[in-house]
Structures are given as C-alpha cells and as structure tokens.
C-alpha cells in the first residue's frame, strides 16, 4: 500500500474522494435493495426522502466542521428545539419572512458562541460543555413552553418547509446551497484550511500562527447558525412545534458525519461525504418503514451503522500504516 502511494504522485479522484464514493456506492446498493419493495423508487417517495433529509443534511454540514476541527457537539438536538421554538414564535408574531429566517439562525449562533467560548477560551472539553448545555437548553425550553406545543402557525411559515422554487422543494434547495457553501468554505478559504489544521494537530497549528481559539470559536458559531437554519426547515414542515423536537438529533447528525467519512479524530473529511451520509440515514429510515420493520429497532440500526463506519475507517487507517 505504501509503495503504491509513493508511485502515484498526483492524487486520483478515487484516492481523494474514495471514502465519499464508497458511501455513495453503498447508498446505491441500499436503493436497489429497498427498491424491490413496491412504491419505494417512485418519484414522489424519492422526493419525500430528499425533503426529509434536508434538515439533517444542513445540520451535518455544521457538525462536519465541528468534528473536522477535532471537537464534538452533543447539544445539537436541544439547540434545534430552541431554534425551532424561536422560529415558531417569530412567525406567530407576524414578523416578515426575513426575520423568521434570521432570528433562529442568530439564536443558534448565540448558543454556539457560548459553547465555543467555553470550549476554546476556557478549554473545557467539548463533551462536558455540550453535555451540560444539552440539559440546560432542553430543560429551559420545556420550562418556557410548559411542555405545550406551539400551534396556529401562519401560512407564511410553512412557505419555507413546503414551498417550491422552479419545481424543486425549498428545503432541498437550502440543503444543496448549504452543502455547496460549506464545501467551498472548507476547501477554498483560509478559515477552511485552518479548521483542518486545527483538527489535525492543534499544537502545530498554533505554532504556524493560526489562532486556534478563534478558529474553534468560529466553528461553533457557524455550526450554531446552521442548526438554526436546520431548525427552521425542520419546524416549518409541520403545523405544530413540539418542545421535545430534535430529541436524539445530535446522534443522527454525528452519525451522518461519521458514516460520511469524516475522521472522528479530526483533520480529515468533507461535507460531501456527510451529505451522502445524511441521505443514507434517511433512505434507511424510510426503507425500514416500507419493509414494515418496527420503528423501535431504528436506533439499533443507526448505532450499528456508525460502528461499522468507524471500525472500517480504523482498519483502513491501520492498513495504510498511518
């Protein structure tokens, strides 16, 4: 393997995106597998899968940046709930569409700023910060809404979740836009390169003159803003917002990212892979419903998929001798 790497100086597409492509191939195999069930491969069902995968895809992009930077966020589901409530209340107050979009993103960014400050500047491990934040936000939002659902949402609100532009559903458009923008950010901007550097080796990154703290803080802020957008897309598809919205969403987002080939130790991976990972999870979830598998097994399938992906990655890394 090592000699092969030396003998090919220019990275081929397979070498560069092999991990992402293998997830894509797996996705096609799954589609073929579930496709044997009548109705699964119908255009309307595939369209539903794309729409349902949109909030997860958007969140997975932010989570990719967090994990590439060598961090983790397990408060994502609670952040989603808070931002969904913010979006719903803004919509109910009769605010214009711009505010309905902007306020949840600001709320998410603000929470991300707090998380990021605690992680980057006080150097508290991300797992502790976000574990604590998870119960602060979840407890806070249930307390604030008294566990009641937010209903009577105006029709302008559902324009985001159910609308179409040129025949393409708005959630899908938003998801594609976010994937494209975060991919560009990671691959083509100094901040993107710094995120990889910090995740790969924070000490070395610091010596190179990168402000590790600022990069980490920014990553959490961006991730929070994307969670706000994800919450808006998520909430605006339904006529009510539940205060337990997004329970377990953090694991879904981390799963999508890890299945998509982002290295859990940081420093490696792309949002393309994470987007395919999110789609894969949605295909499995819809496919299991078509196959009439009890929904109770779904968490097990998801957990097994994550383990499969990380074990495969670990073995592959070991084989390459890194």
């Amino acid at each position, binding site marked *: 393997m090592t000699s092969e790497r030396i003998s090919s100086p220019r990275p081929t597409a397979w070498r560069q995106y092999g991990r992402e492509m293998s997830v894509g191939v797996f996705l096609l195999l799954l589609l073929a597998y579930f496709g044997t069930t009548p109705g699964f491969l119908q255009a309307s069902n595939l369209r539903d899968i794309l729409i349902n995968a949109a909030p997860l895809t958007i969140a997975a992009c932010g989570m990719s940046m967090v994990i590439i930077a060598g961090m983790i966020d397990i408060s994502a589901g609670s952040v989603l709930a808070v931002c969904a409530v913010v979006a719903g209340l803004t919509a109910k107050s009769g605010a214009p569409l711009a505010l309905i979009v902007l306020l949840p993103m600001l709320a998410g960014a603000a929470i991300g700023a707090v998380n990021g400050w*605690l992680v980057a500047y006080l150097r*508290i491990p991300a*797992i502790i910060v976000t574990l604590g934040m998870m*119960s602060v936000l979840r*407890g*806070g939002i249930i307390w604030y809404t008294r566990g009641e659902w937010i209903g009577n949402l105006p029709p302008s609100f559902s324009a985001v979740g159910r609308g179409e532009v040129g025949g393409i559903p708005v959630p899908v458009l938003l998801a594609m836009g976010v994937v494209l923008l975060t991919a560009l950010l990671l691959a083509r901007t100094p901040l993107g390169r710094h995120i990889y550097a910090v995740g790969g080796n924070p000490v070395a990154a610091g010596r190179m003159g990168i402000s590790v703290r600022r990069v980490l803080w920014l990553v959490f802020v961006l991730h929070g803003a994307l969670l706000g957008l994800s919450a808006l897309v998520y909430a605006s598809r339904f006529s009510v917002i539940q205060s337990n919205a997004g329970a377990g969403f953090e694991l879904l987002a*981390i799963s999508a990212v890890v299945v998509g080939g982002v290295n859990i130790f940081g420093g490696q991976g792309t949002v393309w892979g994470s987007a395919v990972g999110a789609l894969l999870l949605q295909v499995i979830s819809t496919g299991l419903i078509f196959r009439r598998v009890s929904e109770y097994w779904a*968490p097990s399938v998801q957990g097994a998929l994550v*383990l499969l992906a990380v074990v495969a990655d*670990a073995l592959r890394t070991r084989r390459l001798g890194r």
Partner: protein
Amino acid sequence: MRVRLPRREAVLLILLAVEMAAMQSLSPLFLTADNLIEVVRQSAEIGLIALAMTLVIITAGIDLSVGSVVGLSIMVMGMLWEDAGLPIAVSALLALLAGTLCGVFNGALITAVGIPPLIVTLATMAGFRGIALGMSQARSIRNFPEGFLWLGQGYVLGIPVQVWVLAVCALLFHIALTRTAWGRSVFSIGANEPAARLSGIAVNRLKRQVYALSGFMSALSAVVYAAHVSVAKPDAGLGFELTAITAVVLGGTAVSGGEGGVLGTLIALLMVGFLRSGLTLARVPSEAQDMMVGLLLILVVAIDRWSRKEKG
C-alpha cells in the same frame, strides 16, 4: 496530586453544608430524617453507575451508553421472568450478565480497534436502547414478586436496602482504587497512557475490565431500579449518563483522566440529589432543575479551569 484530593473533597463537603442550609431556608421540610433518607434512596441507582463511571473517566474515557444498558438489562430481566418463566433471581443474574456483556462489547471496540470511547458509547447508546425497545416492542412488565421488591423498597436497620448496596459497592471501589496495584494502574493509564504501557501495565486489558465493570454496575442499577419502581420499561435509565457524569466531574475527577476518586463522586451525587429535592420542595418544576444541574456542571468545571489558569 495525592495531597490535593482530600482538600477538594473538603471543599465539596462545605459546599454541601451550605447547600443544605440554603435548602432548609427554602422549605422547613428539607432537613427531616425522612426527606434526607429519601434523597439518598433516589440517588442510589445513579450512584451505582457513577462509581464505575468514576473509574472510566479516571482512565480518560467516557461511557455514554450506561443509561441504555439500564434499559436493556431491565428488559432482559423482565422478559426472562415473564416470558421465559425463569425465577426472578435467575433472571436478575442473567440481566447482570447481559449488562456486563454490553460493557465487554464497548471495551472490545475501544481497545481492539482503537475507536475513541466517546464515539463507541454514543453509538452503543443508540444501539442498546434500540435492542431494548425492539425486543420488548416498548411494553412494560409489572407484578414482580414481593421478595424482589424488597431490594428497592425494603429497609435494613432503618436504612433503605439500596443505600446499603451503594455503600458496600462504594467501599469496594474506594479500596480497589486507592489501596491496590490495580487501582494505581487505573490512575496511571489516565495520567499518561504511553508511560503506563511502557512500564508494563496491560493497558488494554485494564480498560476492557473497566468498561465491563461499567456495564455490570449499570445492570445492577437496573435491577435495583426495577425493584424500586416495581416496573420494567425499555425507556428506563434515559438520561442517567448525564447525571452520573455530572456527579463524577462535579466530584473532582478530571475529564482528562488520571485524577479523582469515588468519595468526591458520592458527595457530588448527594449535592445534586439535595439540590433537586430542595427545589422540588420549593415547587420548582423538574425541567428548571435539569437546567440548573446542567448549569452547575458547566460552572463547576469552568471555575476549576479558571482557578488552575490563575495558578499558572
């Protein structure tokens, strides 16, 4: 390091006393023997998990799957008893085995393949919960025999049975951690893993033991919990990991590993228990309590970091 630990626990004890005084001023019902015993009883199930979690975190690991192991082993016990018709004692023993196997599975993935504990146990947290829900199809099992319920509702010398269980386990963990070579090895893994490996400690074997122990203690907690609430439900133990980790970290065990002990964990566990009890008596809703426990966790770690930074 050795000198620091008792001081940390002394600080915790003072905090605990202040907290109890504050709670007493909120409600005169707080400082009654009945209420105090009730708080300790309510804390026992999570306490059992927190003991093992202390060891896991001392090795610089984490186990997020404990709550799901509770759900899985509680259903193993319930279904073996109700569906397979096994005696409750045998079912409970097999539940302990099931929980231990969960821990062995975690440990094997962590050590054999080298995946971070956070990711492994995050995945098995979903996986074990899914198995508990799937195999039981989300039903609950009730009507356990009287003799079994004694484990969670009975008293010995005026003290609840599960508090005795917790006390015995805590003593064993404390001795194992502070008075044996095994305990010193656990600390050395967390403090400096390569050095521990070089000095001849079987790091991977020890880690597997610690995660197996975590699975076993979660199952023990499940058995006690079932006897306490008289019902086995697959969503049992939801969120236990948060309270257990909060107690461990609050109790002075460093998340970076190599430092800590079960005494601090126990005191912190009582702090959280008394806080919740006092707030409940003061009619603060439980969601607001969740919020405060989360804040407490972040605050204590932040203050700890800050004070270390000040010292240099």
